[in-house]
């Protein structure tokens, strides 16, 4: 058997061929860039269309079927006296304070607990059943019990917020610690690490994406709990103000209170998202664009 092989002859490239081809590709490339810009503008316009449609629908509904509901213009007008009302700001600050206290305590207890549960099977066996039994009970259902335990309402609201934020944070931290690849644990043990070093270098950074996701969920639940606790029997806070506006037949104020609650909740979640972007920069894979 004779082996046959040969070299491939270089193709004959005409003068100016490369320039022509280059020019054509440059045109296509520029057109594509334009298209991307147009796409972005269209996206923004579509969003604006959606929001306008929503406001229009709100306006028509409040004037036709649901006549009790204030329309967008009345709600906007009601915002003006509220901005100068000190009670409004006190209420907002109060709600915010309850949320922060409850949330931070929930994180301080929940994150270490969840991480340890995910890392060491023995501790999961011990704490797991208790967490799994208490988890399905809605935080709102804890309110009467919280009032019995804490007697004064001022302490029971942060407790409800704590209950609300605790379980998402624990469950997500646990999932995060479990999601770490086994080889990473083995690799760090190979490098001669003590358990504390394993925690610091592998368990905590590895679970961080899940921890931050759990914190976002917990933050959302925390705001729901604060409103629930305040409506149920509070004397301060935006949730209480919402209920009061309803009772005093100042309906447009309800919309304003809801909007402010929404924006504060959004700001808190955005803060956690900013943390994610900073500390999870290692997840970004650079793609050639």
């Amino acid at each position: 058997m004779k082996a046959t092989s040969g070299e491939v002859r270089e193709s004959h490239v005409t003068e100016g061929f490369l320039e022509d081809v280059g020019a054509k590709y440059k045109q296509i490339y520029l057109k594509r860039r334009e298209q991307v810009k147009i796409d972005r503008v269209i996206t923004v316009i579509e969003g604006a269309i959606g929001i306008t449609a929503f406001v229009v629908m709100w306006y028509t509904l409040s004037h036709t079927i649901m006549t009790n509901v204030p329309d967008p213009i009345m709600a906007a007008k009601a915002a003006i006296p509220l901005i100068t009302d000190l009670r409004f700001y006190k209420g907002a600050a109060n709600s915010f304070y309850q949320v922060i206290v409850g949330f931070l305590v929930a994180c301080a207890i929940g994150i270490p607990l969840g991480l340890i549960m995910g890392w060491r099977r023995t501790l999961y066996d011990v704490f797991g059943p208790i967490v799994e039994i208490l988890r399905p009970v809605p935080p709102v259902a804890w309110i009467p019990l919280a009032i019995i335990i804490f007697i004064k309402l001022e302490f029971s609201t942060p407790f409800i917020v704590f209950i609300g934020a605790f379980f998402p944070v624990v469950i997500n931290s646990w999932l995060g610690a479990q999601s770490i690849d086994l080889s990473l644990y083995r690799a760090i043990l190979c490098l001669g690490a003590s358990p504390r070093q394993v925690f610091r270098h592998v368990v905590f950074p590895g679970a961080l994406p899940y921890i931050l996701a759990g914190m976002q969920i917990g933050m959302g639940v925390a705001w729901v709990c604060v409103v629930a606790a305040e409506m149920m029997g509070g004397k301060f806070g935006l949730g209480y103000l919402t209920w009061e506006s309803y009772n005093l037949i100042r309906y447009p104020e309800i919309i304003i209170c809801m909007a402010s609650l929404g924006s504060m909740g959004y700001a808190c979640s955005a803060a956690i998202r900013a943390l994610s972007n900073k500390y999870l920069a290692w997840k970004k894979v650079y793609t050639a664009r």
Partner: protein
Amino acid sequence: MEVTKPSHENATVYRKYSAFQRISRKSYQGVFNTSNLRGILSLAAALLLWQVFSKYKIPPLALVPTPHEVLQEAIRFVPTRTFWWSVIFSSGRIFVGFFTGCLLGIPLGIFMGWKRHVKNVAFPVYELVRPVPLLSWVPLSVLMFPLTEVSIVFLLFLAAFYPIVINTILGVENLPASYVNGALSLGSKPIDILWHVIIPGALPSIFTGMALSIGFEWVACVAAEMLAGGFGLGYTIWEAYVFSIYPRIIFCMFAIGLSGYLFGAVVRAVGSQMTRWRQIY
């Protein structure tokens, strides 16, 4: 330390067991192992602590009833008609809210995940309305729907809507493009792609969303019932608090928790039956 797991099929057996021996060893070790033992011990320890703290009036559990009292109340309360009517009422509301949420949410989610333009129109509105906490909708929903029942169901609909839509969108978006391309190369029309590729492919995520939303439903239901009242388990808790029947509060808390868990388990079971093609290692 973890141990690598080998595949068990066709493995060389060192000691031969009969089938009966294998099954009995497996079930014995599945139930009576150290993990379960630790769990049972810790639960027993927690119960003991509760009993001691509430019996001897140690704060913070000074006014809390003991487990013994809760058990007695449970035995007394479960056979009554009030209890079962409240369970039925709550469950009924939840079913209605859940199904409305699914009916509206799943098609919308599929549409939004499939067509980018629909998502661009609808999503900003969504993100604007979402941060508003559910319960602050209560006065507004009472204004919107003069009937109390409908306003509560609207609240439950809202609670179910968000997880279902978000998970459906995720499910549709995360389908690999190769699935759709494969269907196109086999010559299918868009309606076929929708029915045979997109919907089955997104089904796991849809069921995840449904299980999540059932959980939120119970939370919203209890909250709405406590505020707006009438019937239902949440209202029963409030009533018990007003009339100072403290053991009933704790019993109802666990009843709600159990119901929430059972509903979620049912949804998850149905989901895994319908998506049996998923391999779970």
